[in-house]
């Protein structure tokens, strides 16, 4: 079924709504995708020097957070379909189809692939978007253009909620993630260039050293030093 979902087969998205245990299967797909994504995003945990014993717990919390995201995502799609086209499909049926649309994200850990990770990320985003459109089209019973609109509005609603009434939830989620990790998760991947594992020289020593080197190799005096001047000191 997962293979068919990955192939965006409309039959399987329709079938899961009526299949016995369909919702359970969809939730299992979401859990699997959530765990995969948690592993794929685990760089943040490592950057913040999480301990091995806490690593699994942090992954578990991230996976469960994914379930919360799934529930909200399903609700926003259901609400958007009602608002835009007055369609009120059974919520559980929509939830089953939307859950199956998480199938491409099972490959989220491929984001870790060195150098090609970003390409995987883009590919998975596009793939997931197509799967969601398929899920909405079949799950809610809409035409393709309507499904695109509903999915877009659902996404917009989700963004608005995350920045307004969802903020407390987001804070709770972050708090739980930090508690599980046992460290404050304040370092993000964008900080990685500034990170230093050991204390460097003091800035004036570096400056003096830089000037001496610059004179040594005879570079023009107007040339400015590059890099290595801002540090986030992390003592192991």
């Amino acid at each position: 079924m997962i293979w068919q979902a990955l192939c965006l087969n409309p039959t399987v998205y329709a079938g899961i709504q009526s299949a016995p245990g369909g919702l359970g299967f969809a939730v299992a797909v979401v859990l699997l995708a959530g765990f995969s994504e948690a592993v794929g995003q685990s760089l943040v945990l490592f950057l913040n020097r999480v301990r091995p014993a806490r690593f699994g717990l942090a992954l578990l919390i991230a996976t469960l957070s994914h379930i919360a995201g799934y529930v909200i995502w399903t609700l926003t799609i259901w609400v958007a379909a009602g608002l835009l086209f007055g369609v009120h499909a059974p919520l559980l049926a929509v939830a089953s189809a939307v859950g199956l649309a998480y199938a491409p994200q099972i490959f989220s850990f491929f984001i870790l692939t060195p150098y090609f990770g970003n390409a995987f990320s883009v590919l998975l985003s596009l793939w997931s978007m197509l799967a969601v459109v398929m899920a909405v089209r079949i799950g809610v019973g809409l035409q393709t253009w309507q499904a695109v609109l509903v999915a877009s509005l659902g996404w917009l609603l989700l963004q608005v909620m995350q920045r307004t009434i969802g903020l407390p939830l987001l804070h709770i989620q972050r708090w739980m993630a930090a508690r599980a990790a046992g460290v404050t998760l304040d370092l993000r991947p964008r900080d990685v260039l500034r990170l230093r594992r050991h204390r460097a020289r003091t800035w004036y020593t570096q400056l003096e050293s830089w000037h001496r080197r610059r004179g040594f190799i005879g570079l023009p005096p107007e040339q400015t030093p590059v890099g290595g001047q801002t540090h986030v000191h992390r003592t192991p």
Partner: protein
Amino acid sequence: MFTGPLDILIIPLALVLAFFLWASLAPFETMGWWAGWFGDKIYHDNVPSDGIVRAVRGHPACYVLFLSGIGRVSGHTLSFREQEFLRQLALRAPTAVVLDDIFPYSVNNLALTGQPIFAWLWRWALDRKRNGPPLAGYLINIRNLFQVAIAIDHRYAPLYNQAMAEVVLDSLLRYQYDPESPTPIFVIGYSGAAQMAIGAVTYLREWVKGPVYAVSLGGIFSSDPGLLAADHVYHLWGTRDSAQVWRWLFPGRWRICASSEWNRACRHKRVTVVPMPGMGHTGHGGYLDVKSRAAGQPPHVCLTAQTVADLIRHAVAGQPVLTPLWTAPISVIPHSTSQIALLDDCPTIHYSEVEHN
């Protein structure tokens, strides 16, 4: 057995998935090191000196570190071409301390054959590589290639390059290097190891007072901040080195990416490309080929060693070569009659040895 066109694709698809699964697991070594999961220990292979390589001879005028290509499994090179290159280099740069006992594809210099869990696998792969069939031996190359990709990836590169800089500094310190002294350091990276060399320089130059030069020996490297951090970068480029085509894989190496580190370094005259006439990437006709290509011509390994030695000599004399892109080595560093005589002095090589690059 197969019922449809997609079913036929299942086996190749499974292989591709397995490949990318392996690739996506590769960064855990680097990330785990950063998080402190493996401690701070830096491992040493304790490779003995042969008298001129890995030896401090008198008062060192400079330090030269050679980072090997992706075929290596430990700090001990098994390539007779690399051994000969290092020997020739040490002969031509007698005041330099020439070191090569670094395994640049490990965050803590731990040999693949010394790993706690998978040592048996790498020993088996190495055995296949040496005694054949060699296909399994390419597992080593693939594994090391993943490490090169990690050193390129902007998410992991700052972590990996710091680890590599620590390994390099540790190696230097073991050979009486004084970080407070103005002694120059040359980090030579062969093939994929050029990325490791350039990446490590970014951090190495924050810890030492002397100038740090990166030398790419037919290197495959991305547009790395190390290109701007190094005091100068020398890129030895064989005119028959077809592997250089891989540079197009890195958008920062394209001319249209004007603000990339590579293009900025070129504009600031921080890079010297040294064409190596007639040299290929590896093996016969490669930079380190020990056989003469034509009668009366010195082997490539001697020419390469002499070129690097000349670059070192100029830097040690306080006049490093700073000529820009595409300058022929023959005009940058003219070979005097005495130097040619030295080139002719190449020793006999035992060709029966097996090359492992």
